[in-house]
């Protein structure tokens, strides 16, 4: 999944050779773009429906030509989201089942330890920064958040779109509960993305103006060694730098 590619870049005044890792393949990069666009449209149209009395929502609904159009667009992109999830599940089956890749997104005890260690590092109680593998605990949190959050949104979304069908087998209260869950889970997802994901990939000191590796697929070697030291060590077959216990 990672390859070292040599890329020669001439910087102003000096000749520099920057090595890159190919961290994300074309399929993953496409998936992320689709996810980005889909979730943005879903969030905007969905929150406009939920908070329809707000001035911004009022403006948007009017610009889109009325609430029925907003409903349609929201449901259409819901379908796109479902398809992207199906695609991802297909990818997982292939990657884990056939290619026998490692499930790098699975949380482990190390992640729990990393949270504590990072906290101590942020507070100045730990000298060296924490060493992470392919995905650190933050990225795992986001990924699993989308996985489970997405599952909730799809299930409750379907219940809201087809209440007659669902209530032929479920009590009606489930639909009312689905409405509550759908709107609130959406709020939660937007909050996590805005506060955390956008900070991590745009505003974080050291990352700003942005981490584009999800679009280009490439991560500079220097960042690879810092941010995913354990993965780097495995691929480059070098010694892992001395690990501070906590």
């Amino acid at each position, binding site marked *: 999944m990672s390859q070292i590619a040599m890329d020669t870049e001439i910087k102003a005044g000096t000749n520099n050779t920057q090595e890159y890792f190919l961290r994300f393949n074309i399929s993953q990069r496409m998936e992320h773009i689709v996810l980005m666009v889909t979730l943005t449209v879903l969030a905007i149209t969905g929150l406009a429906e939920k908070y329809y009395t707000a001035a911004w929502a009022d403006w948007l609904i009017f610009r889109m030509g009325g609430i029925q159009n907003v409903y349609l667009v929201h449901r259409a992109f819901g*379908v796109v989201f479902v398809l992207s999830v199906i695609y991802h599940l297909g990818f997982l089956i292939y990657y884990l089942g056939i290619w026998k890749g490692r499930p790098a997104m699975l949380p482990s005890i190390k992640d729990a330890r990393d949270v504590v260690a990072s906290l101590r590092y942020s507070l100045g109680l730990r000298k060296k920064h924490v060493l992470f593998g392919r995905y650190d605990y933050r990225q795992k949190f986001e990924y699993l958040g989308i996985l489970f959050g997405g599952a909730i949104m799809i299930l409750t979304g379907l219940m809201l779109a087809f209440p007659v069908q669902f209530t*032929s087998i479920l009590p009606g209260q489930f639909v*009312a509960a689905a409405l509550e869950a759908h709107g*609130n889970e959406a*709020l939660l997802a937007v*909050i996590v993305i805005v506060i955390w994901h956008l900070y991590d990939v745009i505003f974080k*000191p050291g990352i700003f103006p942005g981490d584009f590796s999800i679009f280009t697929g490439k991560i500079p070697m220097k960042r690879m060694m810092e941010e995913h030291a354990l993965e780097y060590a495995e691929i480059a077959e070098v010694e892992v730098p001395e690990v501070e216990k906590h």
Partner: protein
Amino acid sequence: MSRFLRRTILPATIAFTLALLVVSAYSLTVEAQSGATTIPHGKDGFEKCLDCHGLQGMIPEPANHAAFTVDTCASCHSYAEATPQTGEPEEEADPSSACGKCHGELTSQYIDSVHGKALIEENNADVPSCTVCHTSHTEQDAGSEAFHTRSVALCMSCHANKELMQKYNISTNVVQSFLDDYHGTTYTLITKQDKNAAVNTAVCTDCHGIHNIKPVDAPGSPVNADNLVDTCAKCHSDASTNFTATWLSPREPSINDAQLVFSVKWLYRIMIPFIVFGLTAHVALDLRRAKGKKQSGGK
């Protein structure tokens, strides 16, 4: 994009999305209320009455009133021969004698309804009589879509009035909860752009009835638990009895009622602030560390 994707997944996605768009658009349309009829109360012959009466007030009575009466006005307003009429025409208190002369079926429904009973048996002035909703002299097409849409404001004029509703122990929450839920939201958004637009959603009268409104727990009421599924099925054709429970209003979820909704609501009320706090703290600590590094001349 690889050839495989271009040839299979992409067209399949497009086809699926288009199909869903078509299905959604169809399912959102609801048959408009049928049965519009024009009012047979033409304006022919009004002129004679209007010569003296107009619609605002009266000028002194002519000596022989009878010679001036016209069928149209006289069918609702009785008159005394050559004597002045004082006060309001008596027909307004009891619609059955005036409106009922032509609209027999609807009037007897009305007399049986909660509004009608209060009007006739108790002489209650708070309830709407025929002319309150239909007005008297204007030509309103009560079967039209525009009237159907505007009827919500009519019902609200009393049912959203706290002082008035307190007298009868009727909660004004019923209006707000309607507006907060699906039907009311759609209604509000469509009418925002055009007050008379046809709405493809249920309004008050679609569920509660029009001339036959009964208390919600009375056996004949369309919103009584036993009858509710048939009322819902007017638009949601395959609705089962479970479907009626999707609509909570005017009830609020609580520990005793709709516990699942209540728990979900509170789960998020706790989880969202907790996560906001946690993530913000994490970002703050991260920034603090970065600032510290910068100050000590680090990375």
